[in-house]
């Protein structure tokens, strides 16, 4: 067999629980290079948890995650991350440029100062999202869409190969949404892999190449054409599988 470079993301039998309640159950996933993937599912389906588990922020009950064939802790330089907007204290005394520079911290490493090159990269990323005129503005004094664009610029500054984005379109104006999706496609064309948690079913079809349907377990994963079907969507959104969750609950409670 020919030697193949390792996949950007491979997940095997991943199970995660919060306080004895299983959130994700036996997830298997393989994501290949240069695709734009949407994670779709109802509230409480474990979409954010899946992202956090890939980043190694929540410890799994079982299973494993490999990023470019490595454990997530070793691969963090190759992964860019956009957390949910609500997870951040927007009154914190940092400027827009400060936040984007944080995207360079991983490259700078401990005890090293931010270099001029890092600064110019950060500034370029701000220009790409059209926020350079706000560079010195305190981060809380922006609109929701602008804040999300700053997060996008920070992710760009990370210069990663795999991007994980948690609801980058939530609470965002139409202009920002369009600009964001343009940028994501541009990144994809450069061979990057992007995994995006998305809440809006109506435009998911146009936005993504592949879709992951999630509701506590993997319902389906594949190209939009195959997965975006009435049956599968119904399966994802049509209520919880009560017996399944009950049994899962009891099994983790011990």
């Amino acid at each position, binding site marked *: 067999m020919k030697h193949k470079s390792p996949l950007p993301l491979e997940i095997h039998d991943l199970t995660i629980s919060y306080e004895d309640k299983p959130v994700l159950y036996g997830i298997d996933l393989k994501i290949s290079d240069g695709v734009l993937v949407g994670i779709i599912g109802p509230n409480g389906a474990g979409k954010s948890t899946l992202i*956090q588990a890939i*980043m*190694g*922020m929540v410890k799994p009950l079982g299973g494993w995650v490999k990023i470019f064939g490595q454990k997530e*802790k070793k691969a*963090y*330089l190759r*992964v860019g*991350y956009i*957390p949910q907007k609500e*997870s*951040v*204290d927007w009154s*914190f*005394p*940092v*400027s827009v440029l*400060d*936040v984007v520079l*944080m995207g360079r*911290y*991983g490259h*700078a490493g*401990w*005890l090293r100062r*931010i270099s001029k090159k890092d600064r110019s990269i950060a500034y370029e990323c701000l220009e790409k999202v059209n926020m350079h005129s706000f560079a010195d503005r*305190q981060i*809380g004094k922006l609109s929701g869409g602008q804040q999300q664009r700053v997060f996008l610029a*920070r992710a760009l500054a*990370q210069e990663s190969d795999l991007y*994980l984005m948690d609801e980058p379109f939530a609470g965002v104006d139409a202009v920002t949404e369009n600009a964001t999706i343009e940028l994501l496609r541009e990144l994809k064309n450069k061979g990057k892999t992007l995994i995006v948690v998305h809440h809006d079913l109506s435009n998911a079809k146009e936005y993504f190449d592949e879709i992951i349907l999630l509701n506590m377990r993997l319902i389906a994963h594949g190209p939009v054409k195959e997965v975006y079907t009435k049956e599968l969507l119904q399966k994802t959104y049509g209520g919880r599988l009560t017996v399944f969750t009950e049994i899962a609950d009891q099994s983790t409670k011990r």
Partner: protein
Amino acid sequence: MNATKTFSLTLIFLPISQLLASTKDLDFFDRTLRFFSFNDYSVQVVVLGVIFMGIGCGLMGGLVVTRRLSLFSDTLSHAVLPGIVIGFILGGFKSSFVVIIGAMVAGFLGVTLISSITKYTKIRLDSALGLVLSGFYAMGVCFLTRIQKLEFGNQSGIDRYIFGQIAGISSTDLYTIVISGVLILAIIILFYKELLVTGFDSNFAHSIGLPVEFIQYIFWMLLAFTVITSLQIVGVILVSALLIIPAATASIITQNMKTLLLWSSLFAVVSGIIGAYLSFLGNSLPTGPIIVLCSCCIFIIILFLHWKNGLLLKWYRLRGKEKKIAVENTLKAVYQELEVQRFSKDLILISDLAKRRRVSVPEVCQEIIPLIEQELAFVKESSNPKLRGENKIALSPKGWSEACRIIRNHRLWELYLTNEVQYQADHVHDDAEKIEHILGDELVRKLEKILSNPTKDPHGKLIPSQQDIKRGYMHIQ
């Protein structure tokens, strides 16, 4: 700028300190000279002590306040009390080293307790903090009363850990304070990036491979260290005040972390020095409360008088705006009255104006005073000076163009709301009443463009044109 601030502060405090000190004038000047000449060894220890304590507390305070951990630092400072008392007994009432160890152990226990309560129970952080704070403090007070019942309890000097007594610090104490101040400064400089990113976005910090929990733990330990080394100067209860107040003051001034840390430590140092000085004058006054009072004073001064964010200036600006709005409303009423008369006359009766404004004649006379002062209008008095309602008012050319501008803003906005935003015609007036005063020239140009230079408002009234505004009233007829 800061030098003058410090100076004026000293001016404020001098008379107060005299009262506090209740010493003779000669003694007062003598002591002031001794303090500021900096020759005296004990003065040197004291001043160096407050400077390094100020640096440490100011820096840590900046981090604490921006991370919303104020209550946490408060809890920590109360939790060390039982440790201090036990350390005091074990150390034979002398060794401040054993006291510090005791405080550290108690602080460590407190922190561990808080984090395990929040981790393993459903109790939230604020309740856990309150629980640990009061529990540990109650324990400390019980121990304390036990000690004071002992024979030598009153002379034991434990008071200085409760309220702070700077005169009592030894050179060993000074070393620990200096070491802690320098350590904090060094850590913040070296790990500024990491502290910034974990404070702002801990999820992201985690994603770039930073050991977030470890950094947080180090942060807590540093905080405990700051609290404990500052104890002898400000005392157990007020240590958290010195962490919170200077940083809160700095957060009024700036929204940049570096500047905030700088100002915060500066405020802490300044209030430390002033407090030490006052305490030095009064000989036996407790240092802690005085230092905290000084930082409160600085806070109040900045809160009200800061040139950009001070409350006093904000209030002043608001007053200015309100006055401007009142003038504009009166001008508008004059215009509307002229309009009703189809601009046939240039003088209108004060009583008519009062009717339109829906106020009494004396009130309307008050309203037009600023108009006359600003030369926007003038009054023609009637033959009978007692009947003020018979007086007539006319607009000056300047007043006319102002009135036209405001009416134009109002009607353009009404038109915009009805045509573009699809408001009902009877809904738009109240909104326009507010917007007319704040529409800038640029926005007005935009409205004109969108509405393609309209001439009539939704109620069919003419919108004064740019020409009307420029022309001045006298030429309109």
